[in-house]
């Protein structure tokens, strides 16, 4: 059996508006193992993005425990959380979130420059070019994001997510802003990356995309309802 790389126990997230509490996530238990490709789907407002934010340490839970490997990351400081994000997690966003003022090379190099242990420029150069070659974008390294098509921008965003060899790649509606042809290409890329050993967790409302994952989880009203392969993913 594969080694668990991420474990959530009884995680809840509440949004407070005045005196009213709204549970975005309630008592989530989730384990992701090395080599998994999980999709989390559900209707709008079910808590998909909130769950992804907690998984990616972009936000903090109100209760529960969260481990990445053996490290308890439930209550990290903002700085510690940033280092964990930088060194262990990779993000792919729906709207690509590339920085317009920077070239593709600099966009991809950014997570490496934020690391606690600084890399040499040569090492950065090698890693960035390798990552860009993974998504077939080396020839565009000097271009600015606004000089690229949507599909190319998303591939560049995937290169940025992969450049630090993350333990887990978190994907948020990665095909939401793409046409069907580009969507298929991106999904094929995720499957290839998973085949090569990268662990992926994808949030999507597109059932077609969700079905392309090895494991599918459904989220409804902040609760994980079922899993298509329950024997591998404990809920």
């Amino acid at each position: 059996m594969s080694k668990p790389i991420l474990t959530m126990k009884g995680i809840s997230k509440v949004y407070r508006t005045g005196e009213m509490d709204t549970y975005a996530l309630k008592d989530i238990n989730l384990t992701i193992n090395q080599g998994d490709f999980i999709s989390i789907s559900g209707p709008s407002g079910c808590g998909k993005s909130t769950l992804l934010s907690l998984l990616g340490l972009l936000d903090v839970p109100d209760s529960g425990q969260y481990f990445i490997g053996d490290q308890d990351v439930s209550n990290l400081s903002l700085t510690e959380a940033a280092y964990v994000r930088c060194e262990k997690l990779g993000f792919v966003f729906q709207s690509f979130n590339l920085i317009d003022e920077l070239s593709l090379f600099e966009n991809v190099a950014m997570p490496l420059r934020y690391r606690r242990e600084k890399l040499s420029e040569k090492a950065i150069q090698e890693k960035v070019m390798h990552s860009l070659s993974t998504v077939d974008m080396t020839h565009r390294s000097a271009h600015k994001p606004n000089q690229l098509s949507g599909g190319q921008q998303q591939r560049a965003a995937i290169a940025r997510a992969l450049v630090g060899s993350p333990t887990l790649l978190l994907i948020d509606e990665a095909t939401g802003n793409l046409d069907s042809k580009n969507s298929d290409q991106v999904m094929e890329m995720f499957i290839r990356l998973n085949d090569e050993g990268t662990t992926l967790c994808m949030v999507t409302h597109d059932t077609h995309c969700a079905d392309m994952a090895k494991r599918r989880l459904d989220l409804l009203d902040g609760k994980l309802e079922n899993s298509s392969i329950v024997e591998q993913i404990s809920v």
Partner: protein
Amino acid sequence: MSMIREFQLALNSLSRVKGYSAAIILTLGITLGALVAIFMVNYQLLSAPLPYDNQDRLFISKGSSFRDSEIKLSDTSPYPALIDAYSFKDTDFEKKALINFNVDVIRNFPASPRVNLSYITPEYLDMIQTPFALGRNFNAQEGLGAKAPVAVISYEAWDKLFNKRQDTIGQTLRFGEVNFKIIGVTAKNFVEPELVSVGRLTDVWLAWDFNLTEEGWRHSWGGQLSNHHLIGLLKPGVNPEQVSHQLTSRLNNRYRQELAGRSFFKSSSIDFVLTSFREKIIGDSYQQTLLLFTGVFLLLMIAVANTMNLILARAANRQRIMAIQAALGAQKSDLFRSILIEMSLLMSATVVFSLVFSYAGIDLIKQLKLDWLPRANELSFNWLSIVFSTLVSGLIALVTTILVNRQLDYRKLSQMMQSGGKGTALQVSKKVRNILILSQVALATTMLCVGVQVFHQSISNIIQPSGLATDNVYQVKVDIGITRLASTKVLEDNLRATRKLFTENPKISSASIAMGFPLSASTDEYFFSYLSEDAEFQKQQQGVVSLIDENYLDILQFELIKGRNFTSSDYDNVKNVIIINQAFADKLAPGDEVISKRYYWLNAPGNSPYEVIGIVRDLTLPNTEELPRVFIPYMAFDFPEFLLEVLPKQSLSAIELNQMMAKVNKEFKVSKLIDIKNAHDRLVHHDKFLASAAAVLTLLTIFLASVGVYGILTYSIQLRRSELGIRMAIGATPATIYIEIIRESFITVLAGLAAAGVILAGLWLWLENTSFVDELSVWGALFPVLLIIILTALASLFSVWQIISKPAIHSLQNAQ
């Protein structure tokens, strides 16, 4: 839409953003108010005509004496030369008058009040169209040589001395031995020209014949008198320089004729220059007020840059409303007008606020009675203040509206509604934001550098020890009345008895008879004379003489650095010994031992030289270079003074001193009682004002610059919120984000500091020709730079705090 309706809409809109409106009205109102007040001061000095008809034809003489073509005495004239100039029938003058400024005590009043006197010929008050509240001016029969004992008093003196009694005309004032009959009281609205010094106004005008010049000096062409002048109203079209030249030529010829054969005056000459009233009154005081104007103007510019930032931020927030207006057919000119109307409303409120503030400012300036600011009593809040404030506000409204309008992309604005309100038609470019920060930093650094330098210099002057005891010491000037007609023996006995009486008073610990105090208000009060190695005075050196007894140096705590102090025997026996200060020692014998050397004194009662028995340390009086001083044990008979050291927490009044002196001689009256501490404080009065003004300007600058830089950075960071969110999402720590923000801000800040350097270099080129800055302090330059760097670091931290203090998702949500 009617204009009124547009104004109503703008007013409604502004009433919903009270904080925004208040911030603009307050910052611009305060700075503009200060600018209006300083503008009025500058107008008064540089442009406002003097309140006399023919003010451009009114001149006062300024005489000088030269030896070997080198100026020896400035602003002095021989008495007979003035009489000659006044009496000579020439065609260039419409009117001429003589004037002598002095002070004296009114002897027929119980408190023997000391008043400012002007001895004049009858033409003077006519020339300046003096209005009268009561009585009349001197007439032709009361002119030169008539010896008419008549007096005109000022409105203030009428109030002070007679409580505005209507029967004042015909009352008498006794000066010396003469009773003067009051014939007139000047009107309240009469503005006397400040021809002697700032704020010096005449209480009583007396006929010229009674001026206190001794008989010998009245006929001496060799004597030079200060405070005696010829006043002239030139005929229209007459060139004053030509008249000065003719006067100098004629009087100099007469001077040489009169002094022919006297070797001392062999290479001497005099000149006689006519100076306009305006030049005499204003002097170079406008340089300081112009500097203040520049400072406050820079402050206003900082406030304008702040306002620009607020307006741009508001315009960015209102672009959806403007997009709807554009979609409904509003042209760019309509949008311009709507912004201009809103700005006009804000500026109208700013004008009102600034006028209230400037009214208070002008009143404060008048109350302060600054001794370097002439014509302050004429300052007023008037239509010019309103026009200036309105014009500047209008200009600010127009410029800011044009700049905002230039940032507005009308094409994008029109398209916004078609794309469901997405996109932006007004996003202040990075270049504009950087220009705003750069200008803020450049202006603020310039202001801070100047402010800190001025503050540092002023405080140094204020706290610098003078080397003189100033606590519990009084200087008492004594008017001896008709005792001056008595023998020197009687006078000497009277003065010694008075000193003894003073020392027996339980309040007084020590007393000294002296003449010549180091803290005199003006050099006119100093007794300048010469010491020379040779009896012919070929190697003479000028110094200030103090005639003192053996207690004087001890009471004032002069530090003896060589030799010894006077003994009572030196004083009682009028020994030919002197003590000099280090400055005089350096002049008399540069690099040589001066103790025991002998020097001749020009005014010595005999022909024997004086031996130097001691050297005292130079004083370090604020804003004055130490003069060479010589102390001589000799009694001053005509104008004696006492120095009285009182016990701690004791004070003296003129009345009690008069009572004490009356036991010795009823003619002895206090003519001036000076608390030395107050005299010293007067020397730093200007520094105190400068330190306060610099402190206020510096604090205002720090406040405005902080708010301004913070505002711009906050706006910039808001625009970058999503980008920063992305950076945080992919692993940037809060510290990394903060350092990145600082690094980017500092590039602009460094450019601003460089721009400030250029401005300051230009300012320095101007200032080095003025008396404002004696020396530059390194701290004065470094402190503002450090302060700006710290302010930027803090402003960056506060601006980015909302982002870096929260989990990354808060910023990232903007990016999604």
